[in-house]
């Protein structure tokens, strides 16, 4: 977590829209308190302190997020792993009791690659509840959800670019409207580990995922934790740093509307319209 959240929105009453955004930011803060591994008493820190045989009671949101994370782990053949190979299997989740039980020592969860998206989804719910529907939400620019575009526009214009280069190194344009995007990369060196080898990912520079909200929500549906499209995009973009291109291609074929890009070092674009 520890991301900077940003909301852009249009609304006839700017003050009201600002209040809605404030409310959404408060929701993100509350999630951060539960999901950040950097906060000593967060749910995730408490899980990371468990020894074999111990359990922790976590809050509703943490359990939802863990269930989605576990589902995405299976969905991506283990490529997406909030425990980076260190113990997701050794945790038992008991959803009804909000219990997380550890069967081994040394679990280390980092919800960064799904929690940001999860927070963005919850922020979108706040904005929609407030009827501030023309909005674009971002967590650290890597987890982005576009709702309706500003009046008179078709969409929120978005780009993906060469990492670190920005404006004049655009790789693709994306029309943001009821669409979630996730991005991963290695500008911060060696922070993505291949859970299957434990080694840092170095070959692929970046991966992006983009799809309509409903396509991503459908992918996450079997997790039974409600709709969380940005969280799914977030998790897929991390997985696509690792998954071989042929697998990404197959995955996109199975999910019409889902697009992905990887940079290794040339750009490969996957799409099945």
């Amino acid at each position: 977590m520890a991301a900077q959240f940003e909301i852009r929105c249009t609304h006839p009453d700017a003050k009201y829209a600002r209040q809605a955004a404030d409310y959404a930011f408060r929701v993100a803060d509350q999630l951060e308190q539960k999901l950040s591994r950097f906060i000593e008493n967060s749910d995730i820190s408490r899980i990371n302190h468990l020894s074999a045989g111990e359990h922790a009671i976590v809050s509703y949101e943490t359990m939802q997020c863990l269930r989605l994370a576990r589902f995405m782990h299976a969905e991506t053949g283990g490529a997406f792993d909030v425990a980076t190979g260190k113990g997701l299997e050794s945790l038992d989740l008991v959803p009804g009791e909000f219990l997380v039980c550890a069967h081994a020592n040394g679990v280390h969860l980092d919800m960064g690659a799904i929690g940001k998206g999860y927070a963005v989804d919850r922020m979108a719910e706040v904005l929609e509840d407030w009827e501030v529907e023309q909005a674009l939400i971002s967590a650290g620019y890597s987890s982005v959800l576009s709702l309706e575009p500003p009046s008179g526009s078709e969409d929120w214009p978005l780009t993906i670019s060469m990492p670190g280069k920005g404006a004049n190194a655009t790789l693709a344009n994306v029309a943001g409207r009821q669409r979630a995007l996730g991005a991963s990369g290695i500008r911060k060196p060696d922070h993505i580990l291949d859970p299957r080898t434990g080694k840092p990912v170095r070959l692929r520079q970046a991966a992006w995922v983009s799809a309509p909200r409903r396509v991503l929500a459908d992918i996450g549906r079997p997790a039974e934790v409600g709709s969380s499209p940005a969280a799914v995009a977030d998790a897929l973009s991390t997985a696509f740093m690792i998954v071989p291109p042929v697998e990404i291609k197959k995955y996109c074929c199975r999910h019409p509307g889902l697009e992905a890009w990887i940079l290794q070092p040339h750009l490969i674009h996957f799409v099945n319209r």
Partner: protein
Amino acid sequence: MPTKTIDRRDFIKTTAAAGLALGAGSRDAGARASNELRVALIGAGNQGLVLVESCQKIPNIRITALCDIWAEYQQKYVSNRLSTYGHTHNTYIDYEEMLDNEKDRLDAVIVATPDFWHAAHAIACLKAGLHVYCEKEMATNPEDARRIVRAARESGKLLQVGHQRRSNPRYLFCYQKLLREAMLLGRITTANGQWNRSRQDLRTMPARYAMSPETLEKYGYRSMQQFLNWRWYRGLGGGPIVDLGSHQIDIFNWFVGARPSSIVASGGTDYYNRETHEWYDNVMALFEYPTPGGTVRAFYQTLTTNNFGGYYEVFLGDQGSLEISESGARAKVYRDIANAPDWGSWVKQGLLLAPEEEPEPQPQAQLDVRESVAPPSYALPIQLLKPYHQPHLENFFDAIRGKAKLTCPGEVGFETAVTVLKVNEAVEANRPVLFKPQDFEL
């Protein structure tokens, strides 16, 4: 005893209550664990939800009743959350109705309503024979706070005031081990603390969640706007100095181990609109504490236009300084290298974590010349692995079970309330204000 005629309304209410009680009794009689406590919540706002989230993590606590006047929004939200957590409960708009129906099946009540309601709610619960966890600030004036403590004494029930740092293992460790036993700071002469926040708009909500004007008026609010922003209004809250300062000025009183004798304070509504921000948007206050070891002066500041530095408390003595904050990232002791003895033995005893060592010079050298570094700082061997309010609630529940002593009983909360509420008086007076002994009398 006055006789009471039973009218139809009363009659229906009592029979309904009896029916409920029977149903609940027969359903749960077998299930109720021997040390299970049944708790009601009055005030399911932001803090009410935080306390629910903490209670969910404590074994053998059942929240069985929920009261909040905002049926359209907060009550619904928190009620859903309770159901999700498996707490079967009844919901109420009015606290008196809740007490009438539920008191025989309850052990305790958590009061997390706006400050000006605390006295009515806490006293009614105590009179109903229930233990009370009452959020800070106890009241908006010392007299109401005094009445709550008296009601607790008369009822013989427990009253815990919501200054949760009093149960925080890190604060307890600093107080008991570092300040009292090891006297690490030497003679404490000074304290300072702050809670600075960024500029913020007044709270608002989508119109469809508004309460009816009748309900608002019945419970003492002029408008939705005032209801949502009660902290800023005289008679409803006490402004940031009471809302935020209360937590930390409580620590001044506790760690210094004395009551203040006087306050000099300055503040005002300098940034926001005085119509909507009746209380001061910034306050700076200086407290003087007479202690057996000499005078201690403490400075406190709260801003609502810039969050620089966040929130923390610092205690300074002639041998070292302690910096502490509820947020765990900020807890350190600094040794005054000119005056403090070596702290190596405290490190060996496990009271402090070893500071980062500066490398020793080569054996043949007297000195290694280098950039000067900060004086040694020692981290604490204590972690809080629970939500911030959980230990304080646990202390309350354990005290009900006779297994603990309250860390913030009414008497302590009262002294803090008297201290904190005096700051607004001192700002208003614009001159030093002295505490009289009777201010602290119950």
